[in-house]
């Protein structure tokens, strides 16, 4: 499963865009070892009739979708396996938004997270050409060949996919200059973090958005390996001046501060504010609540294309706040800022059928990240200071992140 990537173009509408996700297929060429989609298959492909009904439902209910703009997101499996369907859906969306004089017309984007394997193919390139001005595409590449091929292997063969992806990176960067990638870290990936991030920078990808998986996969000692990798990465970025043109999201200046119970009580995750639809026309608060994403729980269904959205099924998500779902330890944590969670994983891992129980599997990894992050900024600010750059003006010499991830 590709991670969701938000481009710099999308940040233009960050927070005011409705995210609508079509799960066009549950098939993928790959069988990534960390993939949370436990129910992938080649049978569940979205029929055109369902896609059309979905678009009609959404555009028919303009009052229920008042966000200023929209991101039509296509995921899988691998979405580009269904390029013919996607092309038809996108044409229909554009035509209908125009015909209806819908407030989203000219305030929309099509967004894709792809494994990049068939990026160069003619049909996909034609689609890109046709929709260039309203398009965001993120290609997932995990780092060096060794790191990438550790997890991102073809199904049935165990063969790594690195070579097939990396050959498409120059074309992708030419078409979408500055576009970043997202990397997902699991336990086995930890020793490769530094070389992987540096490798991605060397491929011309300026921004690496990277996070640890939220699932409970972490072993004793992983936090130390993680911390040491990040400190080595910090040294490499600072000593070689890479911070001027590159960003790694592990390092963020305001990370690791305590959070105010009242003023900083917002939920982290956007589940419930988005809408996902699968091949059967069933609606979910986010793709992570579809059955193929869940290990132990039933799918969290909020409606379907025939009956519409049951708004009662969204009330919990839309009233969720940080403290209500957190343990006392999390609420009182002195390094809480930046500690993320996935509502779907919270639900999947919860003791009862609820999204109000925050999973804390990531705790020790977040604390390790905070320590390395402190090291990074102390070292970077000192270096800049010695170069005569005042702290207040330091950010002018450090590339700022363009991407904003929502998961």
């Amino acid at each position: 499963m590709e991670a969701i990537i938000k481009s710099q173009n999308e940040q233009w509408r960050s927070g005011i865009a409705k995210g609508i996700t079509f799960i066009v297929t549950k098939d993928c060429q790959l069988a990534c070892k960390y993939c949370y989609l436990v129910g992938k298959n080649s049978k569940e492909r979205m029929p055109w009739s369902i896609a059309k009904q979905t678009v009609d439902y959404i555009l028919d209910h303009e009052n229920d979708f008042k966000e200023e703009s929209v991101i039509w997101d296509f995921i899988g499996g691998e979405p580009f396996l269904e390029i013919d369907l996607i092309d038809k859906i996108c044409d229909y969306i554009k035509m209908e938004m125009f015909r209806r004089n819908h407030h989203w017309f000219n305030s929309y984007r099509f967004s894709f997270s792809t494994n990049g394997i068939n990026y160069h193919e003619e049909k996909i390139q034609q689609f890109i050409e046709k929709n260039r001005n309203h398009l965001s595409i993120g290609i997932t590449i995990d780092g060096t060949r060794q790191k990438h091929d550790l997890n991102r292997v073809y199904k049935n063969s165990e063969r790594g996919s690195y070579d097939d992806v990396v050959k498409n990176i120059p074309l992708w960067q030419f078409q979408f200059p500055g576009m970043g990638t997202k990397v997902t870290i699991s336990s086995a990936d930890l020793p490769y973090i530094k070389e992987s991030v540096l490798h991605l920078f060397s491929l011309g990808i300026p921004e690496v958005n990277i996070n640890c998986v939220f699932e409970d996969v972490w072993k004793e000692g992983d936090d130390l390996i993680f911390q040491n990798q990040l400190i080595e990465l910090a040294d490499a970025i600072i000593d070689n001046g890479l911070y001027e043109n590159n960003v790694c999201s592990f390092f963020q200046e305001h990370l690791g501060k305590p959070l105010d119970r009242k003023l900083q009580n917002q939920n982290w995750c956007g589940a419930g504010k988005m809408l996902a639809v699968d091949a059967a026309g069933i609606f979910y608060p986010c793709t992570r609540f579809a059955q193929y994403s869940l290990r132990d729980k039933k799918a969290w269904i909020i409606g379907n294309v025939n009956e519409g959205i049951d708004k009662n099924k969204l009330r919990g998500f839309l009233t969720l706040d940080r403290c209500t779902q957190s343990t006392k330890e999390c609420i009182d944590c002195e390094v809480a800022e930046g500690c993320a969670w996935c509502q779907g994983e919270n639900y999947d891992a919860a003791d009862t059928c609820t999204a109000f129980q925050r999973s804390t599997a990531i705790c020790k990894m977040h604390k390790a990240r905070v320590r390395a992050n402190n090291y990074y900024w102390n070292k970077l600010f000192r270096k800049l200071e010695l170069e005569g750059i005042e702290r207040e003006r330091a950010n002018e010499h450090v590339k700022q992140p363009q991407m904003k991830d929502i998961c």
Partner: protein
Amino acid sequence: MLKYLVILLDDTSTSFCHYDNRKSESRLMPIETLKGGIRFGMMENLMIQFVYPVDALPLEHLKAIETIDHGVIAPSGSPVSADVVVFNDWDTFLKFDYPDMGTFVLRTDSKQLCENPKYLESVLYQVTRLNIVLTDIETMNDEDFEKYDRFLDELRGIMKRLYLKGYQTQCNLITDRIVLDAMNNCNAGTESITLAPNGKFYICPGFYYDGLDAVGSLEDGLDIKNPQLYRLDHAPLCRICEAYHCKRCIWLNQKTTIEVNTPSHEQCVVAHMERNQARLLLNELQDRGIYDKKQEIKEISYLDPFDVKDEW
């Protein structure tokens, strides 16, 4: 802190709340389970409420029940003398020979209720307290809400007439809110727990009858996962709400929103309509010198706190 233990004596024990009991086949709680439940209640210092079926219980069960101070909830046709008598149909409700004391529960759908406010008046003159429980809240739509508001308007008139004649009858839908200054909800899972005939504990009878997960057993003890979610302070919508009389039905919450701490739009609207009518009744009774003028229910502009959550 737990205060009450509800014991369902049989699978056909009457519903006394929003949930339906569709079981028609008797499955009596085994005597050892009953004794175990009573023992549990005694050890945990819980007030036990026995919920009866229509059919008479064996003598052995009746003897066991009398070993502890308790309350009795029974359907109107039951031979037992009950603290709370439950009516599941209007015919029996209207023809019943009401004793001087006691609490009575009328379970009805909103359609029948809205059609019968006049009939209700005759009963309200005969009882000290009537709880009306709607059995179809989750399916009510805007048209039903309008009808319900008109019914409440009539009920307010009935209650005003009663009070002006010196009666002090309580009707949960409209008088409870007047006397409350803080949330007073069902509190299943925090203040009460239910023991079913199978010897297992459930959050409330509705959870048992719907086949939902048990939260422990007499054998293994009580084991409520995520207990904080049943508390008011972990209910984002309810903890800021002023419809103090609302049942805040955990079973309805779970059924309609999946979350036990989150009420549906319908539950909120119904509770707020009742709250607003209670406000009008209070004002009218204050004007006639029946209530202290210091008492106040503020005017609000919404029927569902969810609609104003951005202002919290």
